[in-house]
């Protein structure tokens, strides 16, 4: 995603993801694209956490997609990890432009069912955003690298993307 599109998409995602965080009662949430660019986040205070989770989310998304294809499941809906104190929900967030990835971390204040329910609402809301129809894809290796840097520079700026 190009830098000018990135700024617009980041701004458009801010309110829907903030509502998702509030309604689903998740502790932290991050939205990234397949290249690992951070498009929105709530609750993270350390940039290295964001960078690591963005990269791992993109990798998990790619691996889950490959697994789904191998097993002829075609599409996957979410990954859920239930830890002792915290749980993680990772799901593809489909938009008219590209497939994004949402990672939400929650505790006993919420549940998998609640997160799923409000995630479905978030997907519907994001799919209707006009910003995704206008965004343009990048195609070559050098622009991919530039895009990653654009995402990283946003994360490391004083007011991070979509901080709620």
């Amino acid at each position: 995603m190009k830098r000018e599109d990135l700024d617009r998409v980041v701004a458009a995602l801010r309110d829907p993801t903030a509502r998702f965080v509030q309604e689903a009662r998740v502790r932290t949430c991050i939205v990234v694209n397949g290249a690992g660019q951070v498009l929105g986040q709530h609750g993270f205070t350390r940039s290295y956490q964001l960078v690591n989770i963005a990269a791992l989310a993109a990798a998990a998304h790619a691996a889950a997609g490959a697994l789904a294809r191998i097993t002829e499941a075609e599409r996957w809906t979410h990954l859920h990890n239930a830890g002792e104190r915290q749980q993680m929900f990772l799901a593809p967030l489909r938009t008219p432009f590209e497939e994004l990835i949402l990672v939400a971390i929650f505790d006993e204040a919420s549940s998998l069912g609640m997160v799923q329910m409000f995630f479905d609402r978030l997907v519907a809301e994001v799919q209707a955003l006009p910003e995704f129809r206008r965004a343009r894809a990048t195609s070559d290796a050098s622009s991919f690298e530039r895009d990653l840097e654009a995402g990283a520079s946003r994360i490391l700026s004083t007011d991070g993307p979509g901080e709620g």
Partner: protein
Amino acid sequence: MSNELFVQVLQRLSRVPGVRGAMIVDIVAGVPVVAEVAEGVQPAPVAALAASLFQRTARAAEGVAFGKLDTVQLEADAGHVVVADAGETAVVAVAERGAQLGLIRLEVHRAAEALR
């Protein structure tokens, strides 16, 4: 606990007149384990909200020293939702406004007892 038992319990509950949905819900995850619902009743959101309602009410009951929560009954303009504790799961019934609530509560408790 067998899936057959879940199905038996739900079939009995869903046969009660006025019941539009019966489900067994994982109370911690807030997701349906087994569900029998009429058209228009979405099991996943109902399970999520019923589990959340039950857990929050249980915490409130503990907070005022009422002990362990057994049943939560929600009344709205168009119907009722009854949620009963069944251990790791909960039995949920969604009923029309004019349904025989006493009978539904009885069947929900029977179902919960069978699952404990």
